[in-house]
């Protein structure tokens, strides 16, 4: 009987959210159609030349051509590799450092001036240096990317770990939990909601970081492709690269949202 009560109690919210999701799913293609039509109309009325603003159809053609000759795939792979590498590196270092700083006020006092100072230097100014030191290959871009991702991930990790309920800490101590158990059973799950906020910011910043790195010096990647397109006034190709970047950022963001959906199941059960 209790189970039934529980189901009844939950069902209205579920039905409501399902309806909302259905409306959202219908709205996304609709908005896209509106956007593309407005763009097409603008080009026709104003009669812009293709190097100023190409029509959607022209961009689509360019997209197919770049897809066919394999260049788009090559550049996209390069950028995605840098983004994923940068994320992996930046997040790992930020998680470890953030945990350490959250646990040790002394460490925080000693290191925080350097961390803040590192944020005062714009990444665009730092990128050339990294390219000089680590070359034109993907390593320098991975480092630029990692640096961009580091700060938001660090701060959210610290906030997350610091916001752990002190009474739950006392509970874990009263159960004589080990350090590892306290981390795995208490700190990690309770910091997770905050950290997902940071992760969403980080994945979009990671794409920007990779492009900044490629702008400064690279022989491949979507940032390189944009630079190339600008040089030869191939604006349709520039748009293709731009949209591909947007798609990468969206895919990463969606992946994070899905992960959050799976891991934070308990937050939805209210």
């Amino acid at each position, binding site marked *: *009987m*209790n*189970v039934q*009560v*529980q189901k009844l*109690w*939950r069902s209205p919210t579920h039905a409501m959210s399902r309806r909302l999701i259905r409306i959202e799913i219908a709205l996304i293609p609709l908005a896209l159609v509106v956007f593309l039509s407005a763009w097409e109309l603008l080009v026709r009325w104003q009669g812009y030349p293709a190097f100023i603003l190409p029509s959607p159809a022209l961009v689509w053609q360019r997209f197919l051509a770049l897809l066919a000759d394999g260049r788009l795939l090559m550049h996209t792979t390069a950028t995605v590799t840098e983004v994923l590498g940068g994320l992996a590196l930046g997040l790992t270092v930020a998680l470890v450092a953030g945990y350490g700083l959250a646990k040790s006020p002394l460490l925080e006092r000693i290191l925080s001036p350097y961390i803040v100072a590192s944020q005062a230097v714009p990444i665009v100014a730092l990128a050339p240096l990294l390219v000089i030191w680590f070359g034109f290959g993907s390593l320098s871009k991975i480092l630029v990317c990692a640096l961009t991702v580091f700060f938001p991930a660090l701060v959210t990790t610290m906030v997350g770990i610091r916001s752990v*309920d002190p*009474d*739950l800490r*006392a*509970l*874990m*101590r*009263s*159960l*004589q*939990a080990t350090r590892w*158990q306290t981390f795995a*059973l*208490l700190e990690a*799950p*309770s910091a*997770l909601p905050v950290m997902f906020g940071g992760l969403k910011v980080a994945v979009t910043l990671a794409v920007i970081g990779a492009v900044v790195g490629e702008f400064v010096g690279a022989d491949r990647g979507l940032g390189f492709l944009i630079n190339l397109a600008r040089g030869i006034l191939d604006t349709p190709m520039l748009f293709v690269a731009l949209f591909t970047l947007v798609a990468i950022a969206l895919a990463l963001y969606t992946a994070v949202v899905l992960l959050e959906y799976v891991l*934070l199941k*308990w937050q939805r*059960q*209210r």
Partner: protein
Amino acid sequence: MTAFLEAINLRKTFLDPTRSTLLALDGLSLLVAEGEFLAIVGPSGCGKSTLLRLLAGLERPISGQVRLRGQPLTAPRREIGFVFQRANLMPWRTVLDNIALPLIVSRSGQTRQAQAKAREWVTLVGLEGFAHAYPAQLSGGMQQRVALARALIHEPTLLLLDEPFGALDALTRERMNSELLNIWDRRRVTVVMVTHSISEALFLADRVLVMAPRPGRVRAEFAVPLARPRDRALITEPEFVQLVRAVRAEISDV
């Protein structure tokens, strides 16, 4: 009376926001016999929670000592169950997983027996059907029952309760009182319970301590000579009402 739990001359200070020291407890001593139900009442801020945390080994006194079976207690122990003022559940764990937490921490959680034991406790505290619900889906009373089950699953010899039912409505509170008495009666666990309800203290306990504030110390002690099992109707009896009045006089006369 053989002392099961002893507090000897406990003194505890805190730094308050203005950086002056606040004497939370001073020269507090008490004895608890094995199997006894002791209740502690006192105005808020008089150091009841601080005392319980010292008795649990969660904090150390500045001076004085806590002894369990004659041995100094310097750190938390698994044989001590603690129920906090709020239910203090992990919102990301289901009812079953919250109750099983102590078994998982003591590494007896992987076995099928431990799972079965947690299930048993879900039923014992009347939450069958809610085993897979999350704390946010439960009422305050249900949450506090989960907290109680979590404290008891290790079969502690000493149960410390810090105003466990303070946030509950009167009816739920009465039901929880009966459940607690049942558990205490069946398991013969020693209980020290802080409450701000004088009648709750007298209804449940063998002995009631009244604490005085600033610094926190024991001001008075009342034996409760009421026969068990106790019935709810008791609280309107003249004998009970007189006891309530006597305890209240000690609290308000500060």
